[in-house]
């Protein structure tokens, strides 16, 4: 009997800023948009609160992917926070790239109204990672 292939579902941890992305995720929920349950969010006041160490920790605890998401550049509730986020996370991505795991970390800008975009971003990430994970 052919062995049934067990599909492996990835775990994605996302950091979402309270003012934009978390709001978008709330709206995605209230509009009953669907996205994989493997995506779990941690709410932070501002994306700049995300210490790259959290990302590294999540990866070593077994996350298949991590994303950091905040307001679009220039729209930060804390005025400039996300510019710092961008620097740090871009650097961390470069570091991940050096370790040949660039696709595990992503940075998204999602405003509070962009529920659709939020869903598209996380679903896209989930599916890509899932495909890789199941490819071998």
């Amino acid at each position: 009997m052919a062995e049934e292939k067990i599909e492996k579902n990835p775990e994605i941890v996302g950091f979402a800023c309270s003012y934009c992305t978390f709001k978008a995720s709330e709206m995605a929920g209230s509009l009953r948009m669907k996205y994989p349950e493997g995506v779990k969010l941690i709410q932070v006041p501002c994306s700049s609160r995300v210490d790259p160490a959290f990302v590294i920790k999540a990866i070593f605890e077994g996350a298949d992917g991590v994303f950091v998401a905040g307001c679009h550049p220039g729209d930060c509730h804390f005025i400039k926070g996300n510019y710092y986020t961008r620097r740090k996370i871009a650097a961390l991505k470069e570091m991940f790239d050096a370790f040949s795991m660039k696709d595990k970390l992503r940075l998204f800008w999602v405003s509070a109204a962009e529920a659709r975009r939020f869903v598209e971003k996380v679903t896209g990430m989930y599916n890509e990672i899932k495909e890789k994970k199941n490819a071998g």
Partner: protein
Amino acid sequence: MQGKKIKNGGIESALGHFLKDEQHLVFGFEKGKDNVSHHVFKDSLDHYAPLNPVFSANGALYLRRIFAKGAQIVLMLRPCEIRAYVELVKLTQIEREDVIAVSVDCLGTISSKEKTGNAPTDVDPLREYFKDPEKMRWACRVCRERRGVVGDAGIRIDKNGSLWAIPYTGKGETFLSLLEGDAEAVPEDMFIVSSGKTEKFQVDMETFSKDFSKCIMCMNCRDMCPVCYCIDCVFKGDEYLPKGDALLNKIFRTGSVDIPQGKELFHLIRMFHVSQTCVGCGACEEACPQGIPLTQYFKGISERLQGMFGYMSGRSFEEPIPYVTFLEEELKDAED
């Protein structure tokens, strides 16, 4: 560029004169019986050696939290040490007021783990010795800046083996004034013309895990790192490395935990912490009892991450550390 050609014994006499003041110190190298080592000269500059062919630790490590009032210290150190010093100044770990930092051209070093007795200490024999780059530590071979062009002033070696002192800041001018002779144009071509280059660092997690599997979490690498300046390391707490009850909790919750735990986590987080300030000196690797190729990783990562912002650690006192500043229009492709 203007500078002063240093006469034979010029440094010794100038700094010796400088040390006459009770409060004045020189931090450089001392020639011992069978070794050259870091030394703080207080009253005289006896046995002073401008060059040290053996790398055991980064001298900037000892400078952290020097806030002495009134003392005047002249640093006569390798470029990698001065660069670390510059970073520490930016991080308010050293009061710049008290220090004149002079970077001395570095012809290369060998590891303190090698037999150290047979490396020469004088300029010319050393130049000869390191003609074969394989003798050098890997960190030196691919060093980004072996030229004495950082800090307040530099000691450069010209093609003929003569030493030149060149000021870069006001403090550098003060240093120069200690030396005899008049300022003159510095020759264009120096012995060390350019610095080494590493290839873009690329590795995979498997290799990384293998390389670090030997790690015993002694954290010597952290302790000997000149730019790992924290008084209290996050790894002392339970957030990343649970200990005691916290560890027990975790074991009860999850079933089992590898001991020693969190090797990868420790090194990667530290790597990110020092990514903008690492000078690639390789002190961590010197300190590692397990022979893990730390320099490759830390230097490799930091050069990639610094490159993103056109930053080079220790190059200038003015450049802000990239993580505490930003440009509104940059990193357009950072977003996925």
